[in-house]
């Protein structure tokens, strides 16, 4: 973020085992902080295993100014489970705090206690978490809340807003539950106020206290849901798959309240098939999946393109190929989203870069799909799907609730041509129920009437139509398709990015600027069709263009340099984790000639080797 003297910018990591309430504690923290008007970005990781002892970690960045990603280092780490938390101790900055249980219930093996791993420059804060929970509530269940209270007290956070948040969090449970947890919180908080603070973690008042009341914490998936609802989604079809499932789960709760219908289908093929079927009737319909599901949907996406039926497909990427790394993040489905399937099947692909973008892209996707009569893929990844950010919902619904350009009226008494040639290549569409406009759509190549035809001139004309009409999407209003940040005019290094990684890119760009490197960054939201003119102009301004992304071969870099016919520098990483700001910054330094000494020898690396190196680091 852009630094300001009076800014708060702290990051808390809470780590425990499934069942410890790690995520719940993190939830309360982020809600409490966002209620006060802080900006919050958070990302939770939980295990692939459902039961047992998998690791949960919640990282929460709280700031008064705008930030764009998590920080590589946290200011405090709270351990609810030492074996899981120990590897994360190194993520705590010097003089940051490590908070943990100092009287565990069971014996622990030599070296198994976190106190042996706290770095000399970090400050250990041990407390009898379990004991305090039992004393305050009669059970050890509220350990997470005790330690949350302790952390809040230690950092001097306001108590009341936590009380409010805890009350809300447990309002669906028996009243005693909220009460117990308030006691647990206070017990931890009170203890902390008696402890001398050794560290330098500063909480200052938020910049905009007023917005706190309006601000809500949302994940990318939550924002997709909100966007869908605000755009008036009628139908949803889905098949569970991490990290997209929570979209369906929430829609299933929300949609029926306004008469919407959700169906869990038997597989992804059915999900997209039903989505397209419903889209054919004129209903606003969506599905959401991840890479493996999109692979199954490929043929149907092609049908949607060919039959010119609107549909919205949210794809939240995870590690691949195949079943891959279901609970790790990656950006390796770009090629499939843009190109996947048989034939020349151009479609519209939007990749939001932050939670607010998820809201806008999801809601707008319906309008776009209807306007261009085609599938629209909204491409997220696990990191964006699951990360929380504070967003201020728009005062007025920004989406058109009804299709903009409906639909055909029969011209005179000529036969209705579903696929008639028009100036903008979008043909008047009719939907079942409209008399006199009956027609059949098909995945076969067809003439203007929609009748199957394999004549060369028909195939050429129709290919042209399908391709051309999408170019109109480059003139869309009301949605940022691409945007440049940072220095204007000519710069040493330009960072070109897409999707969730763009947060880290912005942080790296601001850091590079503060080191005196002329630097700017461009995010590309519309990946297909590509706003190539703006990208080319950006490329013109940049001495070097760096493309950081979370896939092995640099899929976006390939896409861009292919269309531009000019080289870019790839920075690829496949660790399953978001890209580190420092990693990007190092490349920027290197490309600008202001490299840090340690990296000098690596200048000759090929892109591939660098990818490998980053992947293994």
């Amino acid at each position, binding site marked *: 973020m852009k630094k300001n003297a009076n800014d708060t910018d702290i990051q808390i990591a809470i780590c425990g085992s499934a069942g410890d309430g790690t995520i719940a504690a993190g939830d309360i923290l982020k809600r409490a902080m966002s209620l006060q008007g802080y900006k919050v970005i958070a990302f939770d990781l939980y295990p692939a295993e459902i039961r047992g002892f998998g690791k949960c970690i919640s990282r929460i960045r709280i700031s008064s100014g705008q930030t764009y990603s998590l920080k590589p280092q946290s200011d405090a780490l709270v351990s609810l489970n030492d074996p899981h938390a120990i590897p994360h101790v190194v993520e705590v900055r010097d003089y940051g705090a490590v908070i943990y249980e100092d009287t565990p219930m069971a014996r622990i093996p030599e070296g198994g206690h976190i106190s042996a791993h706290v770095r000399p420059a970090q400050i250990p804060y041990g407390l009898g978490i379990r004991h305090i929970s039992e004393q305050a509530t009669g059970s050890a269940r509220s350990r997470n809340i005790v330690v949350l209270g302790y952390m809040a007290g230690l950092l001097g956070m306001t108590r009341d807003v936590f009380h409010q948040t805890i009350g809300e969090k447990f309002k669906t449970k028996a009243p005693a539950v909220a009460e117990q947890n308030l006691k647990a919180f206070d017990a931890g908080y009170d203890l902390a106020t008696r402890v001398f603070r050794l560290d330098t973690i500063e909480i200052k008042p938020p910049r905009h206290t007023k917005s706190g009341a309006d601000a809500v914490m949302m994940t990318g998936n939550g924002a997709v849901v909100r966007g869908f609802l605000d755009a008036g989604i*009628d*139908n949803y*079809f889905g098949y569970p798959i991490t990290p997209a499932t929570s979209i369906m789960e929430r829609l299933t*709760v929300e949609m*029926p*309240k*306004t*008469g*919407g*219908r959700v*169906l869990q*289908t*038997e*597989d992804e*093929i*059915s*999900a997209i*098939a*039903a*989505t*397209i*079927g*419903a*889209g*054919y*009737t*004129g*209903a606003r*319909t969506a599905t959401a999946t991840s890479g493996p599901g999109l692979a199954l949907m490929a*043929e*149907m996406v092609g*049908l949607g393109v060919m*039959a010119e039926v609107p549909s919205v497909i949210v794809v939240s990427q995870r590690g691949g190929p195949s079943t891959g790394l279901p609970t790790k993040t990656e950006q390796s489905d770009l090629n499939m989203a843009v190109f996947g399937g048989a034939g020349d099947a151009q479609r519209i692909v939007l990749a939001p870069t932050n939670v607010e973008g998820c809201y806008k892209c999801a809601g707008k996707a319906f309008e776009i799909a209807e306007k261009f009569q085609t599938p629209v893929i909204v491409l997220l990844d696990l990191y964006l799907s699951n990360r929380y950010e504070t967003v201020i919902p728009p005062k007025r619904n920004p989406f058109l609730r009804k299709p903009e350009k409906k639909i055909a009226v029969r011209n005179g008494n000529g036969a209705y041509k579903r696929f008639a040639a028009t100036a903008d290549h979008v043909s008047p569409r009719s*939907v*079942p*129920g*409209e*008399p*006199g*406009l*009956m*027609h*059949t*759509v*098909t*995945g*076969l190549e067809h003439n203007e009437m929609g*009748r*199957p035809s394999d004549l060369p001139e028909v195939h050429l004309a129709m290919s042209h139509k399908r391709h051309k009409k999408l170019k109109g999407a480059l003139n869309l209003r009301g949605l940022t398709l691409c945007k440049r940040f940072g220095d204007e005019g000519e710069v040493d290094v330009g960072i070109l990015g897409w999707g969730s990684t763009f947060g880290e890119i912005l942080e790296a760009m601001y850091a590079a600027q503060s080191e005196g490197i002329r630097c700017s960054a461009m995010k590309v939201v519309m990946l297909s069709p590509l706003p190539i003119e703006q990208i080319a102009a950006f490329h013109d301004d940049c001495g070097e263009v760096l493309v950081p992304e979370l896939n092995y071969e640099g899929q976006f870099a390939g896409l861009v340099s292919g269309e531009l016919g000019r080289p870019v520098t790839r920075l690829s990483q496949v660790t399953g984790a978001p890209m580190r700001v420092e990693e990007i910054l190092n490349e920027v330094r290197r490309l600008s000639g202001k490299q840090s000494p340690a990296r000098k020898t690596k200048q000759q690396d090929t892109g591939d080797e660098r990818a490998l190196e980053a992947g293994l680091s």
Partner: protein
Amino acid sequence: MNEHLKPVYLEEKLDEIRADGHQDYRSKAIPTWCPGCGYYSMTEGFTMALNRLGIEPENTVVVSGIGCASRFPFFVNTYGFHTLHGRTLPVATGIKQANDALTVVAVGGDGDAFAIGAGHIPHAARRNVDITYLVFDNGIYGLTKGQASPTSAVGFKTPTTPYDNCDQPLNPLMMLLSYRASWVGQAYAGRPHHLADMIAEAMAHRGFSYLHILSPCVTFDKTDMTYANLDVGVRDLPGDHDRTDLLAAMAQVEAKEAPALGVFFEEGRPTLGDAMIETIRRAGGQAA
């Protein structure tokens, strides 16, 4: 007098047909099927059924997969969706869920239904999606020129079974009964009037109705499911068959060598649409 011996005058017949109205449900496209194909009976039966039930063509969507059978929508004058091989039912489900007021008919071949699309059938059946599924069974892959299908008989010779088909054929009706489809019947292209009645009855059923239609492929099958064989093979369901008795229905479909024509099973139960409305009610919403 024997129906076949009565003289037919073309003008008269055409007038009769026009007056009847079912030809309004035909499109102007000329079918791509081979002369003599059983599928012509389906078009005829379907248009007659729509006419009889008084369903408006603009409120009807015919959804099909890929195959000769699946060309069907092009030849009827309703809304149509010619989808992908095997994906008829999920598309039809989506259409029906989005607009309950539409009459939705799914059409496909035996390969479309029981090979590539077999996984969708139990789900349409268990959800009781209020659509009619017409499967045209010619025991062969017609469109791709005569390969074996899941309903081809053992010993059947085709380009992909040059040394005879070894795979035991499926019993589609048994499958549908075991999925507890709420209406299960069988018809034969060689009995067009009965076929039309059956289509009409299937469409009148509220819920998922499955009509299996035996239909010879005159081009690629000269030995097996021919008109000659089927004319003598088919039988009527016994007059006392109880169509509410699932086990009795199963007993009837078990005898495959003598296919019975008629309605095996029927029951009334909530449809997918009913379930959706109930869900909306429980969530406190207002159904559209």
